């Protein structure tokens, strides 16, 4: 038994990545998620519109963080502010009487806190919940979970697929075949992208038909966000594959990139409930922006213009991650065979032989 334990300990000591995961990761996760794991939204972004906007804004409870007071605007503007995620609450005032309070049901935890507070106080207006009137958890979770599925397919499946070539020794075989690195990568990724698109369609259908998740916005905008997000996740997968020798290492790294995305993207815990020191991590994660696009399009029916920021961030992340992954993959695949000009050594490929091959 001791011999077995010693052997295992020696192997564990040499597998530094696993050891780091076992020792450092729990501490890191505890600290990070300790600050992130909160459903309590203290401050809710609020717009106040209508003739008595300034007067009402001054009297609102502290929890409602007034970001815009617009006496010249009306209910339609307030609804649009909620739809475009400029605020989670809109107070619409009239010339007299109680103001209307509109709440964005897609911002579930903000909405719940406001609804609970207002309904508990006699004399205050009854809030009207838009987009997700029943404050159903599934309505906001399903669009976000689509992102998680795309992370699974995009990152894990891609990383495993590419590492499998390396581990089985066939990557070297591909390197000598007359392929360009971009052809190998594109050919390798196409099936995974295809499966991811099918997955996405199935999840949308299940979400809409089984969980009654609304789909109010443009399918094209949703598709654009999904494709951008897929590029980021697939890029992360390829990037992981370039630094992993085995499929086990690839899975470890994929989990390391997935956990923060699931917990810090606003999918489960609202971003505004996180401590600022942790929240900025969320703003670096692609899932954060996909969740905003998916919830925006499906639940609130947000138009393209209202989603420019998350769509733009996904484009930036996609370009950066995918570009880096292609560069690393190209370096792995073709160290000498494709780019002879820069070689220290002179590689003389027989052009006559090429011509003969072409003539056959």
């Amino acid at each position, binding site marked *: 038994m001791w011999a077995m334990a010693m052997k295992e300990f020696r192997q564990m000591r040499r597998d530094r990545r696993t050891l780091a995961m076992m020792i450092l990761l729990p501490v890191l996760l505890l600290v990070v998620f300790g600050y992130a794991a909160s459903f309590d939204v203290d401050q809710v972004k609020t717009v106040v519109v209508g003739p008595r906007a300034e007067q009402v804004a001054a009297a609102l409870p502290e929890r409602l963080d007034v970001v815009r007071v617009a006496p010249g605007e009306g209910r339609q503007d307030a609804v649009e502010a909620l739809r475009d995620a400029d605020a989670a609450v809109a107070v619409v005032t009239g010339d007299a009487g109680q103001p209307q309070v509109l709440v964005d049901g897609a911002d579930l935890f903000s909405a719940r806190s406001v609804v609970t507070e207002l309904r508990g106080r006699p004399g205050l207006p009854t809030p009207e919940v838009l987009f997700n009137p029943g404050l159903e958890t599934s309505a906001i979770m399903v669009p976000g979970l689509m992102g998680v599925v795309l992370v699974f397919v995009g990152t894990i499946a891609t990383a495993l697929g590419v590492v499998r070539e390396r581990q*089985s*020794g*066939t990557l*070297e*075989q591909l*390197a*000598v*075949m*007359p*392929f360009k690195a971009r052809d190998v990568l594109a050919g390798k990724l196409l099936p995974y992208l295809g499966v991811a698109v099918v997955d996405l369609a199935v999840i949308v259908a299940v979400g809409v038909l089984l969980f009654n998740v609304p789909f109010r916005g443009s399918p094209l905008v949703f598709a654009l966000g999904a494709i951008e997000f897929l590029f980021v996740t697939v890029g992360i997968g390829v990037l992981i594959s370039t630094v992993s020798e085995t499929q086990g290492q690839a899975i470890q790294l994929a989990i390391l990139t997935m956990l923060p995305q699931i917990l810090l993207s606003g999918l489960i815990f609202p971003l505004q409930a996180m401590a600022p020191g942790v929240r900025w991590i969320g703003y670096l994660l692609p899932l954060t922006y996909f969740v905003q696009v998916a919830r925006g399009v499906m639940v609130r029916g947000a138009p393209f213009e209202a989603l420019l920021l998350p769509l733009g961030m996904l484009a930036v992340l996609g370009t950066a991650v995918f570009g880096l992954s292609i560069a690393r993959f190209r370096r792995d695949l073709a*160290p*000498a*065979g*494709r780019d002879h000009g820069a*070689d*220290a*050594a*002179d*590689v*003389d*490929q*027989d*052009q006559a*032989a*090429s011509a*003969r*091959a072409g003539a056959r």
Partner: protein
Amino acid sequence: MSPEGTSWGCRRLGVRYGATVALEEVSFEVAAGTVAAVVGGDGAGKTSLLRALAGTVRPAAGTVRRPDERRLGYVSAGPGIWTDLTVDENLSFSGRAYGLSAGELDRRVGGLLERTGLAGARDRLAGRLSGGMRQKLALAMAVAHEPDLLILDEPTTGVDPVSRAELWRLLAASAAGGAAVVVATTYLDEAERAATVLVLDRGRSLLAGTPDEVVAATPGLVVDAATRPDGIPSWRRGARWRAWSPDGSTPPGTGLATLDLEDAVIVAQLREDQRWAA
């Protein structure tokens, strides 16, 4: 295939992995229609030389002459086959990668399956083939497009004697068809079948030439004995002993051995060890 007189290889080739020198000043040539063997122990630089020839390793110095990548066939030291594809699918992928048309592919695959004895296993997953069958499949994939230069990294290591013979028959057939064949091997009886032999040791060229030239260049005397001779370097050959007498003397109880490539390579390595020790 290459026209007669064409040759491929390298001159004064150097390969480095970081600070480690894998090859230094190695020159090597293989002519169309011939088989050249690269031999050497573990870490001698065989794989680095073959990779540099195939273009998967960037040379640090020297020149490499190889055909266009469409005219190159390569069997790596790993399996080099896709274990979750069938025999047919592997051959089809490889053929398509090298630009064979569907008709040409069908014709060549059929012939290759017959010659390699894999016709009965064409629908079997490559991962379920025996070691020898896997190597034959890898070789078939490398020759399906009839390359000008065929590079094989220890294709017979770990393969049973019958499959070894079949593999050599196949690569000899490629050479007979006009290809220049470079094969790395640790089996010196195989290397004796090659037209030329390059012996590597610690990344440097130790011996080069035809097997007869290499044997003829052995310095001193190699003797044969029933028991281990004292005082001179010796090694086992079957149930008997061989020993190297650098000064050409015949120790008592020994007789002159009929020298072969294995003896020649061992003597060359003993000399090199002495040189390094000095």
